[in-house]
């Protein structure tokens, strides 16, 4: 598996797209710091961008890379290699290189601005960790879509729809549900609904950590009461882990049964 990882990583490091993403994050970091002129404010703005953009980039790049690697996969499958290690290697290669672009692209400008001397280092690290989680989660989801759809156009469409649903439509439906059922106690419902969407889960986690949950009003207080505690943080992390592992597991399972 490590060899596959090495080759897919090498391949990605040489591809133009990795640099585009790296430069994009780099530019984003500098622009945010320049506009906000303040580390903690920049971190908050960055959060809004990360929870929406990282999933988009991970989904699109994941599905693109999967379809582009069809030839590579077919070549590898005829070699004496275990199927699951081929696919695991590819997955880790993509998710790893995207995470690297994220960490370096955002880390560099913030480090230059004096991140390590400020109190925001913890918040910033949390942001990056969540960005990494989102990259792995949405890469996994995209690979699932890729392996289930031979037709690239369809696969691409589904991938974009998935992102749109989780990043935008889900929140709309959530809000609608809150309004329609406003006369009922909705604490448990809203907590559960958050957990079932990795983007919302990440957003809430960051908001709470940055201690700006007061902005969320009553709901914020409920969330604070749950996620603010040690149990809350641990269960949120476990949920993110489940969100990472379940798509990966389902992808490997499909890959082991597929005909090439």
């Amino acid at each position: 598996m490590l060899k596959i990882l090495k080759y897919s990583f090498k391949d990605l490091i040489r591809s133009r797209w990795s640099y585009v993403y790296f430069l994009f994050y780099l530019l984003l970091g500098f622009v945010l710091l320049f506009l906000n002129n303040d580390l903690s404010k920049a971190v908050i703005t960055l959060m809004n961008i990360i929870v929406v953009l990282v999933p988009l980039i991970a989904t699109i790049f994941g599905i693109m890379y999967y379809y582009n690697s069809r030839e590579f996969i077919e070549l590898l499958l005829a070699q004496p290699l275990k199927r699951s290690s081929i696919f695991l290697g590819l997955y880790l290669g993509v998710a790893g290189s995207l995470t690297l672009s994220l960490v370096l692209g955002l880390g560099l400008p913030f480090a230059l601005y004096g991140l390590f001397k400020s109190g925001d280092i913890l918040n910033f690290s949390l942001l990056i960790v969540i960005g990494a989680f989102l990259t792995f989660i949405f890469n996994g989801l995209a690979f699932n879509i890729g392996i289930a759809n031979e037709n690239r156009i369809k696969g691409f469409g589904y991938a974009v729809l998935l992102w749109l649903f989780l990043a935008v439509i889900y929140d709309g439906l959530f809000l609608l549900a809150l309004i329609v059922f406003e006369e009922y106690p909705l604490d448990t419902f809203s907590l559960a609904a958050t957990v079932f969407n990795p983007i919302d889960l990440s957003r809430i986690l960051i908001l709470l950590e940055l201690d700006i949950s007061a902005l969320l009003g009553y709901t914020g207080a409920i969330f604070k009461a749950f996620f603010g505690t040690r149990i809350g943080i641990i269960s949120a992390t476990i949920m993110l882990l489940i969100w990472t592992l379940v798509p990966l597991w389902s992808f490997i399972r499909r890959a082991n049964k597929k005909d090439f």
Partner: protein
Amino acid sequence: MIQIEKIYKRFGRNEVLKGVDLNIPEGGIYAVLGPNGSGKTTLIKCVLGLMIPDQGDIKVADKPISKQWKYREEINYLPQIANFPGNIRVRELIHMINDLRKKAGDESYLVSLFKLEPFLEKKLANLSGGTKQKVNLVLAFMFDSPVIVLDEPTSGLDPASLIALKKLIQKEKEAGKTFLITTHIMQFVEEVADQIIYLLEGKIYYTGTLSGLLEKTGQKDLEHAIAAITSEKRHA
């Protein structure tokens, strides 16, 4: 060397293999023939584990291959369509396969045999179909494995390379290798094959020598014999 027992494979409603039984002993060249869509590639891909049969067992070197991967160390495979990652160079590709197989391959002889030296530093996406097929052949022959599976090895080759390929096959045969070859070029079959396996509509129609097939069909050459089987089946 390869035992295939009651293999069934369907894609949706299309039943491609309907109970194929085949025993391929060690050594010799076996040509798998059959009209388009008769299941030749599917059968080969099942042996390689690229496709998973719905039913039946396959053994390579007396070991069942289901969910296994180590046995592929014993097999060299030439895929029908040379699909390679486009953005790597020929030299890098050869190096990578060498590295992945953990076995030292001998590519320098093959590279000069197919006159690939000028292409070593070129990216695979920029190669012509025939040149890609030659790279494909280098990858398939560079390891010393007892079984060599070739799916349409002649496609896109110029006459000089075809002669080189035939020599190569003879040389490996003398070294005691077992070949499984699919092709539509009957002249090629007549020249190289020891045994013929004829697949028709997902079943084995005939196995045996070339002269046996000619006798069975009452035709004077292989091309007509094959055509006769195919049309006879259609009229029936």
